[in-house]
């Protein structure tokens, strides 16, 4: 049974459509990256998953059940929110009571996020990074099978970000299913098995990072370069060939690499390098989201 399934999920606020017909599936044991520009509908979707807001239409299933039973689900949504007059530990004590979790688990999660040394201090005195780590600690309190983290590295310094990514990777490797939302492409690229890209409330792509980046074409080093470009334009059409940084970027199925190599050689052109050209994730992201930075 898939940990997360959304079917035709839609949320409207009056005339404003926050999420539109979203289909999304997170498989057991994977780290799934939910990627999108600010305001694309990521947090709204996550809130619907957790039952905090009701969909206008469509369906959410967590482990096959409608939202409601969150045992085995840990989450941090849109930044950490705690009681400023309580210490970090007392905040977790409060949450442990709600979750019916033994207090011994508190030390474990504080240690996991490297916050044991400041656990006695009031939450109101924490830095943004420490607040974020306490938020993740709270999400881990139930030792969840499914962890939902909304922008988990927000506010962390580079070392903190690296630690957080390592923690998420460890949780994924240990068998937990992790759904993280982010607008940081490198972060998603580094830790996610699959990625869903949302723009203007709709899912515009869902695949592995490698597959999203692949399929762009071939990179060819050949001499003479101009002759090679002219020959390939004749074979593939002018729009498929571009000279970039002293080599050719060719938009073509990578499976045709051998055929094109043979064709170039037969035309008297020497080929010194021919490889699949991967797009970077940023390029994919900008293409799919239309380059928006603030969808709504």
């Amino acid at each position, binding site marked *: 049974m898939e940990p997360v399934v959304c079917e035709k999920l839609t949320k409207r606020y009056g005339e404003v459509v926050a999420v539109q017909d979203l289909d999304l599936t997170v498989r057991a044991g994977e780290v799934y990256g939910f990627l999108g520009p600010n305001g694309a509908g990521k947090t709204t979707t996550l*809130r619907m998953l957790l039952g905090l807001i009701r969909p206008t239409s469509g369906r959410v299933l967590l482990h096959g059940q409608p939202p409601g039973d969150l045992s085995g*689900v840990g989450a941090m*949504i849109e930044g*950490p929110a705690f009681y400023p007059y309580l210490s970090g530990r007392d905040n977790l004590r*409060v949450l442990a009571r709600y979750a019916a979790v033994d207090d011994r688990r508190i030390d474990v999660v504080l240690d996991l996020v490297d916050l044991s040394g400041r656990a006695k201090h009031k939450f109101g005195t924490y830095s943004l990074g420490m607040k974020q780590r306490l938020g993740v600690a709270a999400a881990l309190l139930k030792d969840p099978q499914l962890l939902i983290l909304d922008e988990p590295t927000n506010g962390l310094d580079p070392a903190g970000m690296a630690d957080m990514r390592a923690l998420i990777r460890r949780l994924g490797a240990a068998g937990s299913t992790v759904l993280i939302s982010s607008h940081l492409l490198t972060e998603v690229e580094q830790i996610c098995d699959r990625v869903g890209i949302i723009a203007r409330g709709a899912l515009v792509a869902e695949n592995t990072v490698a597959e999203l980046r692949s399929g762009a074409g071939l990179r060819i080093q050949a001499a003479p370069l101009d002759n090679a470009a002219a020959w390939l334009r004749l074979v593939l059409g002018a729009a498929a060939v571009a000279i970039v940084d002293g080599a050719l970027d060719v938009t073509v199925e990578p499976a045709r690499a051998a055929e094109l190599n043979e064709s170039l050689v037969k035309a008297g052109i020497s080929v010194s390098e021919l490889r699949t050209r991967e797009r970077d994730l940023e390029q994919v992201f900008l293409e799919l989201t239309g380059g928006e930075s603030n969808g709504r």
Partner: protein
Amino acid sequence: MVGSFRAELIKLNKRPATWLLLGIALVLGALFAYVIPYLGATTGTTGATADRGIAATLPANIVGNTLGGYPVFLGALLVVLGVLFVGGEYGWGSWKTVLTQGPSRSSVLAGKFGVLAVAALAFVLAIFLMGTVASVLIAAAENESMAFPSAFDILRGIGAGWLIATMWTMFGAVLGILLRGVALAVGLGLVWMLAVQNLISQLAAPLLPWVDSAQRGLPGPGAGALVAALGAPTGTPGVDSLMGGGPAALVVAAYLVAFVALGTVVLRRRDIL
């Protein structure tokens, strides 16, 4: 629900505002129910409320004298407590933190209401204890009788105080839920307690007979009539024998139930943004 109650108890106990409100209630209660009447009586002043005399501050009148503040000023403090305890969750954005741990909204709210009811009882007992100490000191200083009312009268008074105090905390709680925050809820709650109630009873009711009838169905006049029936000194703001103790208790209890129901329905139906 037990887990939610225990969680809410930690939050209430560790929140400085809780103890500040209790401290203010005790100081104001002592000041207006004992210190000022005693000073007035012993210095022989002749003001509008001078008729109370020392007798009102003696142990025999402890029930009425400690209940007199609940219709208005102690009630206002309890409304603030209710708003802070529930509305604060919106201000800090902590509803999502709580609810993603798994408890249902009804369960969390039941825990909150339960803890507010316990806090209201603690307030009432603390005020009663303050009244006991103050009245004994005055009786000792004036060489007056140390006789307290019967245990039944004391328990009935504490029960009535608890009912009113809990109703006011629930009023605050439901304001916090309806207005999704603290500032506006506290402001409007206090406007109702300190201004609107007085305007209704002092200005509108004497002018319009239907307002005079209708105010019997409001929570403040209900609380005022209930404490008046148990001996609270008339002339204290909000204390007025508009109806008997039984009907007044029913009015207060009805509002208590209505506030709990309204808060629960609204919290369950609304999105947590």
